[in-house]
C-alpha cells in the first residue's frame, strides 16, 4: 500500500511544464525563441527562472532590460506565491504547457513585489515558515532551530533537495500526541474572483470535543460557497497541488502532507469549468 510519505515526495517533485515567450512589447535584436522548462510546483518563479532570463537576455540590448516579471493571460504572476498555486489559480483546466509571457519592462508596481535577488525570496520564504510555526507551535520549534537549520530548509528548497529539506522540516510537522494536531492550521485560501489577496484565519485541527476537523469544516467556516450543495451543479473547484481532495479529508493530515515548503496549506478556489 502506498505510504503517506509517498505523498510528500509526489508533492515535492510536482513539476509544471511551462513555455516562456517574450512579450511582443519587448524590443529585441532578433526573434526570441520560446523557452521550455519544468517548473517545480513548490518553488518560486523568480527562484527557478535564471535560465529563462539568460535565454532572453541573449537577444536583447542591456539598456532595454529592467526587472523581469511574468504574466499569464493578462494577469501579472505574483512570484511570492508558490508556482503551483499560481498555476492552479490561473491556469488549471487549460492545455499544457503553461504559456507564460516574460516582460522586462513596465513592472506593475501596484501588483507585484520587487524581487531584486534570491535573498528577497529567502526572506519571504523564511517569514512564511516562521508565521506558520507561530500558528502551529507558538514558534517554539522554529525558534529552537539554529541559524544553520534555517539555512538547511532554504537550501533544500533552493537546490531541490527533498531529503535535506525534510530532514529539518519534519520537526516543524511534529506535535504532541495528546493534542491530536497543531495548535492552529497555517492555511491560505486563494480565489481569482476577489480583490482580497487570500483568506487566512485561526483554525484548529480538532474540535473542542476532540473530533478531527476536515477540509469541509474549514470551508464551511471560511468559504461556504465552495461546498457544493446537493442537487446543484458544482460551482467551485477546491484545488491543492493540482488535485481536489475530498471534503472529509482531515485538515491536520492535509497540513502535514500537502503543505508547501513554506509550511502553509495553499488552497485555491476557482470557478468550476462550465461543463
Amino acid at each position: 500500500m502506498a505510504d503517506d510519505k509517498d505523498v510528500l515526495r509526489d508533492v515535492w517533485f510536482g513539476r509544471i511544464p511551462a513555455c516562456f515567450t517574450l512579450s511582443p512589447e519587448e524590443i529585441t535584436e532578433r526573434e526570441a525563441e520560446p523557452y521550455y522548462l519544468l517548473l517545480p510546483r513548490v518553488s518560486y518563479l523568480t527562484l527557478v527562472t535564471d535560465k529563462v532570463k539568460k535565454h532572453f537576455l541573449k537577444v536583447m540590448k542591456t539598456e532595454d532590460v529592467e526587472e523581469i516579471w511574468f504574466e499569464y493571460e493578462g494577469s501579472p504572476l505574483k512570484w511570492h506565491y508558490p508556482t503551483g498555486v499560481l498555476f492552479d489559480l490561473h491556469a488549471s483546466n487549460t492545455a499544457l504547457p503553461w504559456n507564460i509571457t516574460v516582460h522586462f519592462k513596465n513592472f506593475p508596481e501596484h501588483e507585484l513585489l520587487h524581487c531584486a535577488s534570491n535573498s528577497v525570496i529567502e526572506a519571504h520564504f523564511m517569514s512564511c515558515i516562521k508565521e506558520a510555526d507561530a500558528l502551529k507551535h507558538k514558534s517554539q520549534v522554529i525558534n529552537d532551530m539554529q541559524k544553520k537549520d534555517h539555512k538547511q530548509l532554504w537550501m533544500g528548497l533552493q537546490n531541490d533537495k527533498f531529503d535535506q529539506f525534510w530532514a529539518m522540516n519534519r520537526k516543524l510537522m511534529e506535535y504532541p500526541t495528546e493534542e491530536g494536531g497543531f495548535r492552529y492550521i497555517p492555511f491560505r485560501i486563494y480565489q481569482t474572483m476577489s480583490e482580497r489577496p487570500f483568506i487566512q484565519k485561526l483554525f484548529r485541527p480538532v474540535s473542542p470535543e476532540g473530533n478531527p476537523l476536515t477540509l469541509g469544516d474549514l470551508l464551511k467556516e471560511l468559504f461556504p460557497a465552495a461546498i457544493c450543495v446537493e442537487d446543484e451543479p458544482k460551482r467551485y473547484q477546491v484545488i491543492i497541488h493540482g488535485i481536489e481532495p475530498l471534503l472529509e479529508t482531515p485538515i491536520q493530515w492535509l497540513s502535514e502532507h500537502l503543505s508547501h515548503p513554506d509550511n502553509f496549506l495553499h488552497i485555491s478556489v476557482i470557478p468550476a469549468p462550465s461543463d
Partner: protein
Amino acid sequence: MLQGSQVSRIHRCIMPSSLLRAVDVYGRVYSLSTAGQQWEHCRDAHLEFKRVTAMQQCCWGIACDHNIYLNVHASDVPIRYQEETYENQRWNPVDGFSDRLLPSDRWQWSDATGLNHQPLSGFQLPSENWEWEADWYEDENFGGELTEKGGWTYAIDFPATYTKDKKWNSCVRRCRWIRYRRYKSQDAWVKIPSEQTGALPDPFNDISCGGWEITEEPRGCLALWAVSLQGKVWFRSGIHHHNPEGSVWEEVPVPGEVVQVSCGPGDLVWAVLWEGHLLVREGIGRDCLKGTSWVTVESPNPGVGAVHVAVGVNVVWAVTKDHKVWFRRGVNSHNPCGSGWIGMVGEMVMINVGLNDQVWAIGFEDRAVYFRQGVTASELSGKAWRVVSVSRDSDRSHSSSSANSLQSAGCFFGGEVRLESQASVVSDIDPDTERAVGEVLPASETEVTPKPRIPKVTSDSFISELVSDREGQIGRRDVSAPAAGPSIPEEESAEKEAEDRGSPAQVLSPSQSGGLDPQWSNVDLEEAQTQTSGTAGDTADTSSLSSVATYNLAQEEPYGTDEHQKWAWVSGGGCAVDSHMQLNWFNSSASTALNCSMQAMSLSITPAQTAAWRKQIFEQLSERSKREMENFTHYEQAIEQSVWVKKGSMQWWRDWKPHKWVDVQFALEQFSGADGSKDGILFIYYTFNDEKKYLHSFINEVTILVPVLNESKHTFAIYTAERTKQRWPIRLAAAAELEMHDWLALLSVSCCDSRGIQGPPSKQAIWSITCKGDIFVSEPTKELEASPYPTACDQMFWRQVGGHLRIIESNSLGVVWGIGYDHTAWVHTGGYGGGFFQGLASSTDNIYTQTDVKSVYIYENQRWNPVTGYTNRGLPTDRYMWSDASGLKECTKTNTKPPSPNWTWVSDWTIDYAVAVGTDREGWQYAADFPASYHGNKTLKDFVRRRRWARKCKLTTTGPWQEVPPIPLSDVTVLPCGPKNTVEQVPLWAISNKGDVLCRLGVTSLTPAGSSWLHVGTDQPFKSISIGAVHQVWAIAKDGSAFYRGSVSAENPAGDCWYHIPSPAGQKLKQVSVGRTSVYTVDENGNLWYRQGVTPSYPQGSSWEHISNNVRKVSVGPLDQVWVIADKVQGSHSLSCGTVCRRLGVLPTEPKGHSWDYGIGGGWDHITVRGNAMEAPRIKMPPLTDNSSHQTSGRGPLQARNQPEMNGNPVGC
C-alpha cells in the same frame, strides 16, 4: 512542550485492553474495557454484588448473600499445581527392594523429608473448583538427568544423598510420584467456602485485594482484606498463583470498629474506623503480607470523620462524611502514613485507586463514575475529574441504531446534525451534561423506573439499603427495556471546558459554594471560555472562580428525574491506564458511533488507510503527475542537481594511543550519480601536531551505525568491513542526544540510499539485537550462504529498526516475534523505522509506542567484625560498600543512574531476593571473603555478606512492534520454512516467563500475532525452545536438561509427549536451536554442542558433539546454516565480546562445518537467521585446502591472544 522524546508523531499506543469494574446501585456488575466505549454487564451467575475488588488475574466480590465470591479470569495458561509424594523402599536379601521398611524408617509414602505420611489416597482436591489432570505417575527426571525406568533414586540409608545409579551399598531407594491438579472454575463467580472461619459471627461488609507487587513473580502472593459488619478485620492467607482461593481467614485485631479497608498493589493498607479516624498497617513485607501493627492517622477534617479510604502504590485518597475528597501527601513504602492532607475538588461517595495509581470515584450528587485525569508519576494527584459517560450494553440498541441511520443517510456535512458530541468533555460535575446524557435515553424508560431512594448517609448504608429493597425495582426496570425510537437532542448544549487546571489544593468551603447563583456562573463560564479560545488559546487556565462555579451548579439538580447510570462501587485494580493512553470513555452515548467513524476517517488507524479521501489523494496525485509531467519529460529541469554537504562539530575517539576524545569537524558530502543513484563520503577533520588532517569513509562502505548512548556521552560507532575485522570502529560523540539522532537518521538514510535499500525488511531478513536492546536488520543475498565462497559476514550491511527487545525470532514467511526485557511479547507489524528514525526513514502506518522495563542492580557489601557484627565498615582492601556486581565500581543508591538518558526510574530501590543460590530473609548472601562464592544462609566460616538491590527503569520508544498480550514470555521460536515450503498455519512455540510451554494458534503470514495460546504440560519449568523445519520441537528445562517433543506435525501441532534427552556430561544446557535437520545447543559454560545421529526415524539423535567454546547463543536456519553470538573474538586492533559469527563449510554432508567467519560485534546479544531460506546457486568446487586468512580454523577458535583494548566493545556488554 516540544522537546525531545515527549514529542512524537502520531504513534498510537496500542496497549492491550484491560477492564475497569463497577457495581451499579442495583448490584449488577459491569466492566468497561480501556479500549471500549460501553459498560458490559457481567451476566454470569444471577448474583447481585455489593462490592467488587479487582486485579488483573481475578476479581473478588461480596454478593448480596454476604458471601465472598471469586472470579478467576480465563487464561491460555491454566493454573496447575503439582502434588508430589515419595514412595520409599528398603533392600532386603529376600525380596530385594520392597516396601517392607525398618520400624525406625520413614513411612512407605512420605513427603520429601520423610517426616510426614503422604499416601496417594490422602490427596484430596482442595475444593470443587479443582480437577485432576491425570493419574499419578513416576517422575523419571532427577535434577536434569534421566533415571532408570520407574524413577528410582538410591541411597545408603534414609535420609541421605540420592543418586540415580544403583550401587553395591544402596540399601534404600525412593521414587517421586507426581500428579497435577488444575483450577477449572475460570470466568465464573465461585463461592469461597466460609466453613473454615467457623466462628465468623457476622457477614462481610467490605473487601479489598492487593499486595501483588510485594512478592516476585513466580510466587505471586496476593493479600485479601475483609471487614465484617461488626467492624472486625480479616486477612485471607495463602493466596498465591497456585492457590487463587487462598486457604484460611485470619482475624486481625483492630483498635476499634473498622468500616472499610483498602489494600494497594504494594505494601500500603489503610482502614477507616467507624468514628472517622484512619488506620495504617505497618510491618507489611515480603515475609509478612499481613503486617504487624496499626498506626492511627487523624481524619483530614477534625470535625468531620473519614468514611472511605483508597490506597495505591504511593498514594492515599480519602473521603470524609461531608463527601469531600482528600489526597494524602508524602506517602510511600517507607512512610506509609504520609505527611499531610490536601483537600481536593469534587464531592464523592467512594474512591478507588487502580494500577499506576490511577484514580476512579463515584460522584456524590450523580452517582456517576469519575476518572481522575492527568495522574502521572510526577503528579499523583492528577488534574481534574472527568465523568465516564458511556452507555451500558443494554442501552446500546437505541443509540447505535440512531447513529447508524444518520451515517447511512450521509449526513456528515448536513446542516442539522451536529457532529460535536453533547458535552463530551466535562470536568467536575456539570448538570447540563447530565441532562444531555439523560435525554438520550428514551423517555418511556424514565417514566417506568421508580426513583431510587438516595439517603444522604455514608456509602455503606446507602448500598445496603439499595440492595435490600432492590428486587422490585429491577423487575420493573427489566420490563421497560425495549425503548422508543431514537432521539437526538437538538438543542445546543453549552460546551464547557472548565478544566480544573489550577492547583489541586483547591478547597471549597460550603458557604462559598452555596452562595453562588448557578445561572450567573453559567454565563460567566461561557464568556471565560470564548475569551480564552480567542486570545490565549493554550493558556486556558480557568480561574478558581470558574471551577467553583461549575462545581456548584449541581446543587439544585434533583435525582431520579432522569434515568442515568447510578453506580455504587468501582474498582480499577485490574485496569491499566497510562497517562498517554487514549480513552474513549468520555463521550455521550449518542455521539459515540459518529465519533467512532470520524476517528476512523482521520487518524491513521488501519481502516483509515483505506479511507476514501486518502485513496482519492493518492490516485489524483498520480494522475496529476501523469498529466503534467508524462509528455514533458524532455523539458529541461529548472534546478540542476548538485552536491550537498552537511557539517557539524563532534568528538572523535582517536585511533592511536593515547586514546582520547578529540574535537573534530564532521562532514557528510552527498551526491547523486548520473543514473540517479546516490552516494556520499564521510569526512572527519582533525588536527594532529598542529597539522590539519582528515579521515574519510565512503558511505557505501559503511556496514552499520550503532548508537551507544551512555550516561556521559552521546556516542555512536561507524563500522566498515575493514573496521569490523579490526574490531575498531570510528567512534564519534555528538554534543546532544537530539543532534546524535539527527546525524544517525541522516547517515542511515544516506547508507540505505547508497545501497538502494528502502522500505520494510524482507521476509528473509536476518535480525540481531545488541546488549542495549537495539534492533538491527540485514538483507541477505543469495551469496550469503553460498558454499564454498560465501559473502564474508563482515560485509553485511545492517540498518537499525526502532524499538527495544531482548530476543527476536523470525521465519521466511515474515513472521517476526520479539520479547522485551520485561518479557512482553511483540510482533513485527511489517513496518520499519520508529525510534529516532522519524519522517522519511520510517513507515508511518505501523509504528507504535513500545515500552520496556528492566532492573538496575547494585550490591550492598558488609564485613563481619567481632565487636559489632556485620557492618558497612570494611577492610581498607575491601571493595566499595556499595558496588556493582564485580565490586570494582562504586555504585551507591544516589549516584547510580539509569543506563542511558532514554531510561527513567519507575520504582524505588528494593532488596532483590530473586538471586541465584538464594538469600536469607533480609536478602543477604554470605561468603568467606570478597570475591567468593556466595550462599544464602549464614555459616560460621562467613565473614562477608552482600545483598542485591534492584531498581526498575522504563524506556518508552516507538517501533514497528505491536504487543501480544497478556502472557509474558521468556523464549519464542517460529517454524523455519524452506524456499518452497508453504504452510498455512505457522507453528510458533514459546516459553512463558513462569516456564510454561505454549503453542500459538492461528499464526499465518497475514496474522502473525495469531489468536490464542495452547498450553503444553511439562513436569518442570522450561527456559528455551526451538522448532525445526519438519516440526521437530526441542526444549531446554530450567534444570539444564534437554527434551524432545514427540509426534509434532502440522496436523498435531502440540505433539503428544516429551522425551528426556540427557545433556552433555556435567553440563547444564541453556539454549537450543533447530534448523532443517541440525540441532545445536549451548550450555551455561559457553560450549556449543551438535546433536549427532539425528535421523528421520530417530529424531532424538544419539549423542552430543562438542563444536566450540565461547559461544553465548546459537541460531540455526532453514538451510542448516549455523550462526552464533561468540565471546572473545580477536580482531587486529582489539578483542570483542558478543560478536556475530557464522559457521563456514556447512554442507548437507557436513552439517557441522569446519571454521568460523566473524561479523559485526562486540556488544551483540542475539541473532536469528531463521528467515533466510535463500539458497545459493550450487557451484561444484574442489574441496578447499586452505582457509582464507581471517578464518581461524578448527574447534575452539574463539580464543583471546592479545591484550584487549577498550574499543572492542563500544556497545558494552
